């Protein structure tokens, strides 16, 4: 009987305009987020949830560079060998939502999964850009290559490892196997060590190759980041 009364009452009331309702609900939800500067707050919140190994490894490479400066020794070989691991673990940590099945939870919050990924990339990226700049100065003092060249020599392995790891994260092997990012980083690190230890130096006048490589890798990195975002968007859709 109560159900019958309910149905009678419901049928007698006109349905609210769906478009008007939808517009209002969206605007209302935006207002509910408050006025605390959404993007900055999201980045700051995600920075707190980047795991300690990422920051520790970044700190470790900085310590190595500072030690070299203190001991007046060239450390570019060691620093450039560690850089692939720094980028590898950064990519690995940024993509852990998918690995641990958090994507669905994140995607139903008001911050989209894409927003979370963006925040993590930005928070790690800001720190690592600062790190590379500092390393270029510190290691550059002892390397004999100058600050710009040192920066290019450190950025190149970082970007190679980062691009490869991002590409790997989009494969089933990369998502299933956490060690695959480490393997990629180790491979790039090994190459850098060989270049330095075996003395595979570029001939005089060919140093510009480092600059060109860094520039090309920056473009590739940008493309990889875009692909990663598009990948998350396709996965959600």
């Amino acid at each position, binding site marked *: 009987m*109560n159900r019958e*009364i309910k149905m009678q009452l419901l049928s*007698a009331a006109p349905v*609210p305009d769906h478009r008007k309702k939808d517009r209002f609900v969206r605007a*209302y939800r935006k207002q*509910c987020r408050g006025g605390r500067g959404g993007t900055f707050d999201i980045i700051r919140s995600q920075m*707190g949830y980047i795991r300690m190994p990422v920051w520790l490894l970044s700190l470790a490479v900085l310590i190595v560079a500072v030690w070299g400066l203190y001991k007046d020794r060239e450390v570019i070989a060691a620093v450039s060998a560690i850089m692939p691991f720094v980028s590898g673990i950064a990519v690995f940590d940024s993509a852990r939502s998918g690995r641990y099945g958090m994507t669905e939870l994140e995607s139903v919050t008001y911050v989209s999964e894409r927003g979370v990924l963006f925040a993590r990339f930005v928070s790690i990226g800001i720190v690592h850009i600062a790190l590379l700049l500092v390393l270029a100065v510190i290691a550059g003092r002892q390397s004999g290559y100058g600050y710009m060249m040192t920066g290019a020599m450190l950025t190149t392995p970082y970007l190679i490892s980062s691009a490869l790891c991002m590409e790997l994260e989009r494969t089933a092997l990369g998502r299933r196997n956490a060690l695959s990012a480490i393997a990629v980083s180790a491979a790039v690190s090994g190459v850098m060590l060989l270049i330095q230890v075996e003395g595979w130096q570029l001939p005089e006048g060919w140093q510009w190759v480092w600059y060109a490589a860094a520039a090309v890798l920056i473009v590739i990195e940008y493309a990889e980041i875009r692909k990663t975002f598009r990948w998350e968007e396709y996965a959600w859709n």
Partner: protein
Amino acid sequence: MLKSIIQYRGRYNSRAMDIEEQYDKIYRFCYYRVKNKETAEDLTQETFLRFLKSPYEERGERIRYLYTIARNLCTEEMRRERAEELPDDVSDDGLEAEKAAEKAQVNLALGRMSEEDRELLILRYMNEESLRDISRITGLSRFALYRKLNRVKKEFMRLMEGGGTHE
């Protein structure tokens, strides 16, 4: 990571998460007070906006707060005498004849009831609010509310059986 999501979601929850559930309820509540669809939509949205600006702290009385705001807004609106005497959807809007007749009958029956009785009927039998919440919204004790709801239900059924008119 989860904690950050929940922290943002917690604040979002208290004001925004219920809107999908409550929008239609508040709209119907307003509609049966002012008997005008557009006005009811405006009042519904105004209700939520005022709720958002209110200093309400989450203590499990959200719905009561919403209905209280809606009630006050409807009362103000009716004082402005903008409501039409008959529902604006008197026409069948393409409904089947039988449904259109039932609709008209319901509206007629509701029109014959007092505003207080109509409100109780809407809150309890259409929006299915709890006795506790209705008691807090209307200020009636649970015992008095229970008796009134029984009477209102019988009255509505009698009016419907009688074609919407008193016998």
